[in-house]
């Protein structure tokens, strides 16, 4: 009797689960082959109302900061989530009674070509028009591509990439200055996140990169290039986040302080 019950239970469980399993195999076959008709309604409704980016008010008693560029501009790695943009805003806010607004439209992993398309967008152009202070951090991802290469990259490769970058940067600066003549623009230099492990040739590329950028920007009176290489050279342990590439909150604070010193309000 006891065995009979076990047998019935065993048979029941296995028949039910066999049916369930076969059904879900058919479903997974459908999913992997892309014919998900019955799941159409669960397709992500990601067309949620586009967040209208706080288009900054143009009145004179607010001070608008715009942050453009890559992950460094975004503030990736900062546990407090501030990035240097908001750090500066906080310090400035303590000094003036103006309302300070930060608009961060940086994109992680962006390169100069990407930034060029972004600033041609209508929203970005509007944001540039009303900004008093613009931060640009770009080029790090392009320069990094040579660091991760195991074999030494040929100097012509570096040259073409650098020229591309410089042309893009020039275009970006032209767009920004043509849209807004009065704003101050701060370009952030590259630092070396690899410490001693970096190859001498790659270090030279990095320095050259910074130098060429500074040279490009020097004719503009309202643009300033702020180096970060020296900040990070002896402080990598203190300033780098867990990923050993982006700055942490201390690192961003250091960058912000440096920029504040340059701006001298």
């Amino acid at each position, binding site marked *: 009797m006891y*065995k009979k019950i*076990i*047998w019935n239970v*065993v*048979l029941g*469980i*296995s028949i039910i*689960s*066999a049916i*369930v*399993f*076969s*059904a*879900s*195999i058919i*479903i*997974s*076959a459908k*999913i*992997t*082959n*892309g014919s*998900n008709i019955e*799941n159409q309604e*669960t*397709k*992500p*409704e*990601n067309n949620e109302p*586009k*967040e209208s980016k706080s288009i900054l008010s143009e009145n004179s008693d607010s001070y608008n900061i715009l942050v453009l560029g890559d992950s460094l501009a*975004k*503030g*990736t790695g900062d*546990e*407090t*989530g501030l990035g240097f943009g908001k750090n500066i805003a906080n310090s400035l806010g303590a000094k003036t009674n103006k309302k300070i607004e930060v608009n961060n*439209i940086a*994109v*992680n992993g962006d390169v100069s070509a*990407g930034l060029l*398309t*972004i600033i041609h*967008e209508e929203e970005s152009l509007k944001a540039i028009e009303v900004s008093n202070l613009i931060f640009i951090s770009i080029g790090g991802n392009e320069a990094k591509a040579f660091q991760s290469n195991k074999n030494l990259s040929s100097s012509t490769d570096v040259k073409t990439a650098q020229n591309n970058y410089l042309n893009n940067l020039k275009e970006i600066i032209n767009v920004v200055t043509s849209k807004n003549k009065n704003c101050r623009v701060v370009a952030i230099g590259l630092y070396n996140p690899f410490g001693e492990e970096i190859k001498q040739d790659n270090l030279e590329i990095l320095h050259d990169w910074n130098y060429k950028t500074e040279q490009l920007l020097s004719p503009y009176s309202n643009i300033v290039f702020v180096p970060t290489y020296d900040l990070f050279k002896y402080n990598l342990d203190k300033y780098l986040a*867990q990923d050993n590439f982006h700055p*942490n*909150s*201390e690192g961003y604070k250091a960058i912000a302080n440096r920029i504040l010193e340059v701006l001298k309000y």
Partner: protein
Amino acid sequence: MKLFRSLSLKEVLNLLKLIENEVTKILLKKKLLLISGILLVLISLFAYGENYKYNNTVDRFTKSNSQTQSYDWQGLVKQQISDLKDRLNRSDNTNFNKNSSKSSTGIEIERLQYYLDNNINPITPNAAKFTINFMNQSIFLFLPLLVIILSGDIVSGEFSSKTIKLLLTRAVPRWKILLSKYIAIIIMTTLMIVETAVICIMVSTIIFHTGGWFEPVATGFKVVSEKLDASNVIKIYQWQNAILIYSLGWISMIAVASISFMVSVLVRSTATSIGVMMASLITGSFLQFFLSDWPLVKYYFAINLNLSKYLKGSYEIIPGMSFNFSIIVLCVWICLSLIVSFRVFTTQDVLV
């Protein structure tokens, strides 16, 4: 063929009796109990280890950012969401992100939003994640080994213990005896998969306290010419995902059971049968690493066992392998081993 002759109700009942007899034999050998024991011990160990690892990570995080008192994952998740939204908005305006990745980005946002809404740290282990992970990790070696323990001696055991004489002298055709044995191991395999799921769910719920069964996940990625194609990505819940993955595990285990059944018919000693199966399974993982350029390798059953990786859209090891391909290869292996076993068993001379 006698085998395909339509079975009358009486014969079906007759066959059921035979199957019951076989299942009872397997149950009496206490193999299922042994397997349950192995599963329970291993799953508990894994779950404990996972929990330990998680606590360690959190510890390290809080220590390294001593200036921020508690480690703020919510900030990180919010930042990730805003990044993804930026990307989504941007791809509306320009075509610089492909349309295909849009739906997967949407699901990713939804997933992160779920973490925020329910106040769950994304790296917290939960029962759903653990249950799915366990299947993903054990589908190509651990579970097949358990299946071999179950089914390796189903026929050869009769030879080893000389009971084959008693079995064949009954007034039942040989193919029926073999069919009942085959169905019995299919039943046992199914039971084992269900048992794995149940033990995983119980142990991980006890250890992690969180279910996470209603967490949305993205599935349906495809790898097309070395690129991830996300155009058909859909959103499902973790519990649906778990059922899908366990069903794929089920079909893989049936393939292993069928092949091991064939081996058990071909060899007359249980030890040899289990040894042959183990060797062929382990060969599979070797082949994957050393001979992945050789096109014939992809027709080997052990390489196609890992079906669940297709749902996640992880990289294909050997070019030309896809979900359909693997399913077809496994089915062909199942059919071939059945044909071989029935042919051999019904025609061979049994000398005891």
